[in-house]
């Protein structure tokens, strides 16, 4: 207790000076996520929000030295799929901006427009080692859910650092229902939406007020996806549905596809790999809880990795408040056949690369200084971060949850708990 308070206090004291100073974290086991691999007893040096060096050398003179002997030092975690900052309470609609079932707009919705940097889940997520996340909405009444954005976990008003980085779509059972009742209807709708975007603005000016699938704003918004500038994240699970999606690679080769879910992906892993389509999977999905996931297995992530598929790890069902669960998901992926290196990258450097951010999720010279110091293997359940840096700035290791904890740790205090704010 006392020790952790002192640590927080010392980190807070450092924060204002972070940009002026050189900080060296030394003595720890460094996971670089680069060709350097893992460096034992290494030193990470950062200055002005960037990584200056990663290696085994001594800290430069004049640097503020953070002793990390016995600790693990990793890049900040990057959630490939999250809704943190979009919902304070999932069941209370006024606080929940993840989805708009009552809106006629689909592709033109932007998760960034609903992002709240004061959302309590942000600090809760940050103190578990997450420094960045892709935030993505949920399709409402249609097949498309709009654009996702990239945010950092600083909680500052300028947390959004990239907009319109991915478009979410759903097929499979949910897509079929949204399209009117069948997979053929969903597929026809998607092809029509692609045609609408291609025909925009021409057909929307001459005669037609609306497209076959998309209203004017959505047709305009879908354009960058259809031209391949922004990837299309398609939620799909069943092996045959995955193969259907892969036919888009021939039909519309310019469209960049990422599969979300891919629960039966292991059955068509070679085809996914050959199509060079990355996947975002939940490695714990092993229940046949729908007919589209009858072949669910804990070994899915590992088998996809071995087939050469690029694998990121996320769980869209725990995206608002429990992005932090991704550590446990990655650990379980390792227990079920994925390599540790692959599983850790699946929650750090792989998502960063998916969204065009090569300077995140890695520790190398010139990268953004998102760094986490852990008290052990980060995937182990009993371990946790001692310190989190976002772009070189040390973050307070507290949240509304830690404040509640501290308020109620001692129930014998004379004044009611409401007087205690630490």
């Amino acid at each position: 207790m006392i020790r952790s308070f002192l640590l927080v206090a010392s980190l807070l004291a450092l924060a204002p000076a972070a940009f002026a100073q050189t900080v060296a974290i030394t003595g720890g086991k460094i996971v670089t996520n680069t060709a350097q691999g893992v460096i034992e007893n290494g030193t990470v040096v950062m200055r002005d929000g960037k990584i200056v060096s990663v290696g085994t050398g001594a800290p430069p003179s004049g640097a503020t030295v953070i002793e990390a002997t016995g600790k693990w030092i990793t890049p900040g975690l990057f959630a490939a799929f999250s809704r943190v900052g979009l919902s304070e309470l999932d069941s209370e609609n006024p606080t929940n901006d993840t989805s708009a079932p009552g809106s006629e707009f689909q592709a033109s919705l932007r998760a960034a427009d609903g992002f709240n940097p004061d959302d309590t889940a942000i600090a809760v997520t940050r103190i578990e080692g997450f420094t960045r996340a892709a935030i993505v909405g949920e399709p409402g009444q249609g097949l498309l859910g709009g654009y996702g954005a990239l945010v950092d976990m600083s909680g500052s008003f300028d947390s959004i650092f990239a907009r319109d980085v991915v478009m979410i779509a759903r097929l499979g059972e949910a897509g079929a229902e949204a399209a009117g009742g069948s997979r053929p209807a969903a597929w026809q709708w998607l092809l029509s939406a692609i045609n609408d975007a291609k025909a925009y603005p021409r057909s929307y000016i001459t005669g037609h007020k609306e497209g076959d699938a998309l209203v004017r704003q959505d047709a305009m918004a879908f354009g960058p996806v259809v031209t391949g500038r922004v990837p299309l994240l398609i939620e799909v699970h069943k092996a045959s549905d995955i193969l259907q999606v892969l036919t888009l690679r021939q039909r519309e080769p310019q469209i960049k596809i990422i599969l979300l879910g891919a629960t039966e992906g292991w059955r068509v892993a070679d085809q996914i790999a050959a199509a060079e389509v990355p996947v975002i999977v939940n490695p714990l999905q092993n229940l046949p809880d729908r007919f589209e996931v009858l072949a669910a297995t804990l070994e899915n992530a590992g088998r996809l990795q071995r087939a050469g598929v690029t694998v990121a790890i996320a769980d869209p069902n725990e995206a608002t408040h429990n992005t932090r669960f991704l550590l446990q998901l990655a650990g379980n992926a390792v227990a079920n056949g994925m390599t540790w290196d692959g599983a850790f990258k699946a929650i750090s450097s792989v998502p960063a690369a998916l969204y065009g951010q090569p300077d995140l999720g890695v520790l190398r010279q010139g990268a953004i200084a998102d760094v986490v110091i852990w008290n052990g293997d980060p995937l182990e359940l009993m371990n946790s971060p001692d310190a989190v840096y976002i772009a070189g700035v040390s973050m307070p290791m507290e949240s509304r949850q830690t404040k509640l904890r501290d308020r109620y740790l001692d129930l014998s205090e004379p004044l009611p708990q409401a007087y205690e704010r630490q």
Partner: protein
Amino acid sequence: MQVWKLIPLVALLAGACATTPAETTSDTGQASDPAKPLPMRVAYNPDPYPSTYKPLPPDDVLIRNATVYDGLGGEIKGGAVLIQGGKITAIGSEASMILPAGIRTIDGTGRFVTPGIIDIHSHLGAYPSPGLEAHQDGNEVSGAVTAEVWVEHSIWPHDPGFTRAMAGGITAMQILPGSANLFGGRGVIIKNVPGRTAQDMKFPGAPYTLKMACGENPKRVYGYGGGRFPGGAPFSRMGNVAGYRDAWQRATEYKRKWDKYNADFDAWEKKTKSPAEKTGDDKGPGDPPNAPDRDLELDTLMGVLNGEILVQQHCYRADEMAQIIDLSHEFGYKVSAFHHGVEAYKIADLLAKEGICGALWADWWGFKAEAYDGIRENIPMVHNAAGGCAIVHSDDANGIQRLNQEAAKALGDGARAGINIPKAVAWTWLSRNPAKALGILDKTGTLEPGKAADVVIWSGDPFSVYTRADLVFVDGAITWDRSDPSRRPVVDFELGQPGEGDVK
């Protein structure tokens, strides 16, 4: 159903043919006129859907040289556990054991042995996979008080979730109705073994339980019906409490009627056995008393008031748990465990004082207002109160597969807050404490000689994310073997489907 215990078996057999099948009555055995048998006491069979569970053929083994958590808080390094005839027969050092010749041995080097995990909160079978519309059998939403329903009548034994839970070291669980209602109905305790029927899985000798629910769910499901089905009360938290009180009051009066009937019958019986000439009473025994009408809803509630049915109370907020505790005092029953208890840490002292366990998640929060104040240290803080009883529960077909991992998170979080609990002690959250709150601690939950051999052999430290259950024993029989496909059950639903189970 206290009356049941008073009835000798022979009387049951005699009465069975004289009454409707559900109703069993007792013969006084004192009929003076063989042509006109005396009326019999009205009593109802408390176990009309009895367990047909049979253990699998026993696998007698000696597990040697393992790290053993005994479930009582103790750890034995290089320890041994002897399983014979379905029971634990010895635990400790192998040298101190009398070993039968030729007993099969399992090398525990690098492995851990623990009691099987008991999940006190599951809906498997009642909300099975796949989650079809046709499978929504966990909430009888037709009324706010449905104490008359029994969740065992919803259990589909072919839910693949049972086998997934097996792979996670679950040897027993409580299946509960959902939390839509104030009184959701009876829960049932089962062994996690494959069966053709729900009865094949029922834990022999385990008590029945009653699901009750606080807070948002009942008032949302009923009051927020907006005039449509189901609608009506309760509309608010005060409506919830009024609904509980109304039902308990009716149960109190029902119990009074039955208690009076039984007392009157006792008195009448006494009179029939003591002829008037001896007692000086020339009126004779007269007519026997009339039994009250049976009410299936109140039968269950009376079972609680008689101390035979254990209350499992879904409740998130600390202030509501305190209200429920007063409610239980008002009507004279005991809450066995608060389930979910996201704010249990705020009243850890009160729960400990009342002897009520907190069946909790490690870290769920934020999905609704009453879950807003969830913290990661809830379990260790409830444990840490003097006399505190913490349980790790799932309420989830995924979570039940990894309750040991949930305990590990809670343990690590506690340590972060300065609450240092040995791993062997934390294992009490997974087996002993749930067994206690379910009334089956005399049968399972710890590794003690004479108890059922419900045992898991883990590939390593069960608090590590990389560890998996290698072997699972229920009543001394291997129900799950990670290395042997012939001991990995596949339920009917998955047979002939892609993969046939998780391990494909």
